[in-house]
């Protein structure tokens, strides 16, 4: 099966993982020749069962894990052996699984820390205005301690922090983890807003159906390879896929 995720047109991909193999220590490979490509202003969603290697894809893309073979390109530039900081500078911003705000610092400090590598004060302030508009919660609770916010609000602070470096692609690892369905809805709405504001998103989710409803493109991972890929709504309608990965019931229509 072709593992190319996107239309073959000549447009430039912002992030390309090409035939990547990676694993932890001496253990067996987790990713076995995986190829994922993220076009501009698109939400690409990786779904798949536990252990398929979804989070590992993000770790490789953010430089936390160096692949054993294959290449990673950001906007055409080879960044395969980059450290996490270099990946950040290259335009890949990683929002970690779970809650990763600095709980004892204010929302403002959290957001400003996201721009720590940006020296230009004017640019930082522009970005602050930008994320405040994009995430009203962040503007509302600007002076509050981040730890006092609810899980969904903290997630939005993390999103805001990740956008401070004007990234090419934001890597989101399970943004709905630990959130109730309503907060999950808000978080996915914010993912769409990030995309509409011009940032590409590579999203990893357990909550497959919900994530595919949000995403533009989807990739189903299994055993370290892209198993099926295509436009997200087509994947949602695929009865076989629904049977295997989405909880055994084809979505008749996305809007329940």
């Amino acid at each position, binding site marked *: 099966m072709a593992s190319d995720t996107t239309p073959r047109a000549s447009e430039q991909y912002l992030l390309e993982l090409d035939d990547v193999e990676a694993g932890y220590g001496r253990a067996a490979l987790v990713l076995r020749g995986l190829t994922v490509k993220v076009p501009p202003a698109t939400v690409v969603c990786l779904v798949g069962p536990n252990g398929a290697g979804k989070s590992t894809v993000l770790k490789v893309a953010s430089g936390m894990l160096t692949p054993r073979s294959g290449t990673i390109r950001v906007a055409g530039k080879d960044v395969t052996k980059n450290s*996490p*900081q270099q990946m*950040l500078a290259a335009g890949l911003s*990683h929002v970690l699984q779970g809650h*990763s705000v*600095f*709980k*004892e*610092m204010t929302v403002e*400090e959290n957001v*400003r*820390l*996201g721009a*720590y*590598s940006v020296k230009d004060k004017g640019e930082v302030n522009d970005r602050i205005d930008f994320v405040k508009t994009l995430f009203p919660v962040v503007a509302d*609770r600007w*002076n*509050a301690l981040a730890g*006092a*916010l*609810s*899980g969904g*609000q903290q997630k939005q602070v993390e999103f805001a*922090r990740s956008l401070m470096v004007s990234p090419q692609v934001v890597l989101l690892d399970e943004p*709905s*983890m*630990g*959130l*109730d*369905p*309503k907060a*999950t*809805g808000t978080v996915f709405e914010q993912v769409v807003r990030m995309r509409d504001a011009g940032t590409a998103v590579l999203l990893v989710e*357990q*909550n497959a*159906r*919900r994530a595919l409803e949000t995403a533009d493109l989807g990739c189903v991972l299994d055993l370290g390879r892209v198993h099926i890929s295509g436009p997200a709504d087509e994947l949602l309608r695929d009865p076989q896929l629904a049977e295997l990965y989405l*909880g055994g*019931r084809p979505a008749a229509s996305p*809007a*329940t």
Partner: protein
Amino acid sequence: MPSASDTVSTTDRRSRGSVALKAVGLLVLAAAVLSFPSVAANPFILSVGVVIMSYAVLATSWNFVGGFTGYISLGHAAYSGLGGYATGLLVIHTGVNPWLGMLLAGLAVAVLAVPIGIASLRVRGASFVIVSIALVLILLLVFQSWGSFTGGSNGLRVPRPFGPEVLRPEQHERFFYLHAALLAVALLTWWLIDRSRFGMGLKAIREDEDKAQALGVPTFTYKLIAFVVSAFFTALGGGLYALWFGFLDPIFQFSILVGSYMVLMSLLGGIRSLFGPFLGAVIVGYAVEYFKNQYGDTQFHLVAMGLLLGLVVLFMPDGIIPAATNLVDRFRPQKTSIREVTQAELAEQRRTAGPEAAQADQQARTDDGTDIPTSDSTVTEGARS
């Protein structure tokens, strides 16, 4: 329900009110410190005041590392001791102006702190504590054995900066003000760092060093700078003490106890608060002097301090200032997002939110039924909160 603009204006008023309150508090504090020598009943009380101010300088200096980075150094007596000895030896051997000698000693210790910091800041947590203690013990041995230069166990007599015509009470008063001035400079520096970009990076290190590094904070350099600044002020504190007391003995200068006092004072007052170590120094310093005075040369004051440390860790892990702030906040209007909402308001919200919310509710119900991971995670969240 208050509209958004209402909320903003009350917040504004509150913060303006708290700024005014802080200004008044600062003035009262300054007045209290400055008037202390004139209200002190006798020279002994005044000398206790000098000791307490000296502790306040040391604890505030310690807090440049402990408060900002969360690295707990039990061995800061190394820098106060070195500062004291360097000041004394410079005055004795070069005849330099004592105040200049004190400053030079501070700078020398700061330079020395660079390699020490590079070596010791590589390790975190308990390992860092042990390394910091080791340094004090090494210095204690060196200064005891190298008698020809340091005076060894016999101690070192430091010439007094003021002539014999200045009597004891007058000496105490002058040194009280000198310590207060040094404390003010240290506090001002701490405050400036606290509000800076540098300070923000340090606080991120305190919360999660790895995360801070991932965001691009040059963690090692920052820790080292904080460490060196801390050593510099600690050494100045040690030097000023040496000039006042006029006598240095290695066993008291390079003592684990002095370093522990700095930690205890800071923890007691609150390491995240500007005035935390100062407040802690007043309480602990007074208590130590009281117990020494009441029970003479027994070790009773150590027992009392141990008890105090235990109580602080158990009941006020963040220190007195944060605990008191929380208590005050409890009687203020709530600042959190959790507000009581009447049923009418809820209905109104539902109505304005309209179909979107209804859809979300619907979605929630379907998800609960079908999607195992979601319902799982919901349960976990519930359990956590």
